[in-house]
């Protein structure tokens, strides 16, 4: 076995030791210096990154809460950071929780809506003979009927602290509040009211209920809008459509009758006005005629009294000439030479009979 000391001794004996140590030390020193420099640079970079990560921005439509060792930093309204640049201590000391507040959020209650079958288009319920509650949600109306209802609610967060930190799954709770409101309103409306007569009232009832439930539970939201769709189950949809048609037909008949009422009474009004106008004009004509006769009589009276025979003959001649002018046919019948009066035979039906109407029609 070789002696290591000897071997070393041999090595030392063959090389010059002092210059080798200097070179090694120098190389090591240089390497360490380089490494320290790198570490320093890395440290500075990390420090810069750490400082940089301590600033954060809160965007519009959101607020932020800083939790220091799990507790909110600040008191009262200062807990909520609105949009801007903020400082925080590095993790895990501080944690920033961002909460969306401005934008509308939507939840949909589908517990009372029909299920979509494989061949269905989802737009209308399939006409199944019975409903499977596991697939087809529904509400029972106050008159014991079954209807499908879908409610969509839009809301905004007004209390970010409560909304985020008081509830483990706030969205599910809000959906269930809406589900509850649909059922609550359903049992207060008759099927016909819900679907035809008062859908707005039904929508309002759901809205009022969900607002009440959310306020009572302190969800920290404000309900912006509730939209409600409702339809009859597929098995009875035709029957409901027929009711709607009959209702429209009823309205149509009544409107037609009202139109006819307007027409008849308007015509009657026109006719009565005409009757009265004719009566007035007739009466006026009569009075004017009489007045004219009276004036004429008074005008002619002096001439008549002056020479009655002449007056009569002149007036008679005037009238005769008018009659002769206006008459259609005139026959002059000269007196027979023997003075015996002529005998005339009159055909009292001078115009030909009209052909029978039935013959005309044919």
């Amino acid at each position, binding site marked *: 076995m070789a002696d290591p000391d000897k071997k070393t001794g041999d090595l030392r004996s063959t090389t010059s030791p002092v210059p080798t140590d200097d070179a090694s030390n120098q190389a090591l020193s240089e390497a360490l210096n380089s490494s320290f420099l790198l570490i320093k640079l890395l440290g500075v970079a990390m420090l810069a990154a750490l400082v940089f990560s301590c600033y954060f921005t809160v965007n519009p439509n959101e607020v932020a809460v800083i939790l220091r060792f*799990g507790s909110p930093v600040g008191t009262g309204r200062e807990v909520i950071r609105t949009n801007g640049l903020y400082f925080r201590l590095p993790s895990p000391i501080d944690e920033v929780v961002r909460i969306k507040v401005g934008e509308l959020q939507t939840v949909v209650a589908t517990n009372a809506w029909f299920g979509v079958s494989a061949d269905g288009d989802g737009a209308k319920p399939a006409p199944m003979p019975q409903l499977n*509650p596991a697939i087809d949600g529904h509400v029972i109306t106050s008159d014991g009927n079954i209807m499908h209802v879908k409610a969509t609610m839009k809301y905004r967060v007004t209390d970010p602290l409560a909304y985020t930190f008081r*509830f483990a799954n706030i969205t599910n709770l809000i959906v269930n509040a809406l589900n509850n409101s649909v059922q609550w309103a359903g*049992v207060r409306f008759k099927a016909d009211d819900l679907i035809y007569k008062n859908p707005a009232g039904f929508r309002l009832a759901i809205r009022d209920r969900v607002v009440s439930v959310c306020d009572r539970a302190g969800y920290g939201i404000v309900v912006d809008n509730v939209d409600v769709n409702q339809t009859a189950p597929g098995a009875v949809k035709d029957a*409901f459509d027929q009711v709607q048609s009959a209702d429209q037909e009823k309205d149509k008949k009544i409107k037609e009758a009202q139109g006819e009422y307007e027409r*008849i*009474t308007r015509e009657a009004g026109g006719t009565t006005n005409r009757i009265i106008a004719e009566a007035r004009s007739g009466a006026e004509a009569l009075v004017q005629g009489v007045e004219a006769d009276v004036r004429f009589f008074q005008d002619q009276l002096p001439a008549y009294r002056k020479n009655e025979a002449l007056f009569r003959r002149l007036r008679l001649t005037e*009238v005769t000439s008018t009659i002769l002018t206006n*008459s259609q046919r005139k026959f002059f*019948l000269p007196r027979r030479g023997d003075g015996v009066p002529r005998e005339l035979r009159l055909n009292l039906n001078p115009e030909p009979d009209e052909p029978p109407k039935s013959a005309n029609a044919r």
Partner: protein
Amino acid sequence: MKRNPITMITGVALLVIFIFLVFAFQVRFTQVAVVTRFGRYSRSETNSGLFFRLPPGVEKVYYFDKRLQNFERKFEQTFTRDKRSPIVAIYVAWRIADPKMFLERFNSDDVLVAEQSLEGLVRGAQNAVIGRHDFSELVSPDPTQVKFDVIEREIQEEITKTALSNYGIAVDLVGIKQLGLPETLTAKVFDRMRAERERTVKKLIAEGNAEATKIYSQARLESETMFASAQREALKIRGEAEAKELKSYEVFNQEPELAQFFMGLRALELSLTNRSTLILDESTAPLNLLKDPKALKIQ
């Protein structure tokens, strides 16, 4: 020996981090912590912040979510007092009110484990409470009979009685999220709904016809009334005119024969109009002029 200050700082920092990792724990704003020492309950930390503890192996920290949890059951057929069987599903908003008891009962900080026990509790409360009410208190044409809110409150009270004392769970809200009819009943309801709609259709048609007939009758009645009124008015106007006529004719008393002569002439003129046929002999004036031009001589 000269020591590098950076090395010192780094060493101290690492020591502090180690101490914090081993001896400290954070409780978040939404949590409550229970500390056990050698498996026995030691204390609860209900406030948020940084707390100290003995190292693992001596003390163990359980974290509980103190926020309201949403638990919902699937629908289940339930019998009412009057033996009707609606299907009901309810949801429960619950929270851990007593973390020590919660840990003792469930030996876990997992809310899902607790919800398995809660499910049985909720089912029992739901069946018990709905079994005390008639179906008409859930669904009724008379809104004053519906006790939806009362039933929800009673279920909440029923659950709370056991949940708080046995599990350390508080129930803040109970709501009916689904109320329906079992599949077998829906077919019968559909038959009834169809029959009701058919009756409604007939009723609507009859109402429409009746209303329209009423309006037509009213129109005819009003029309006839207006005619009658107009006729009366016209008659009155004519009567007044004729009265005036009679009064005016008193002038004719000055010379009745002249008046009769004028009327005779007018009658003659009116009766012999366009389509009349005249047969005249030579004695009729003025045709008598044809035979004797002097015939018109006025005497």
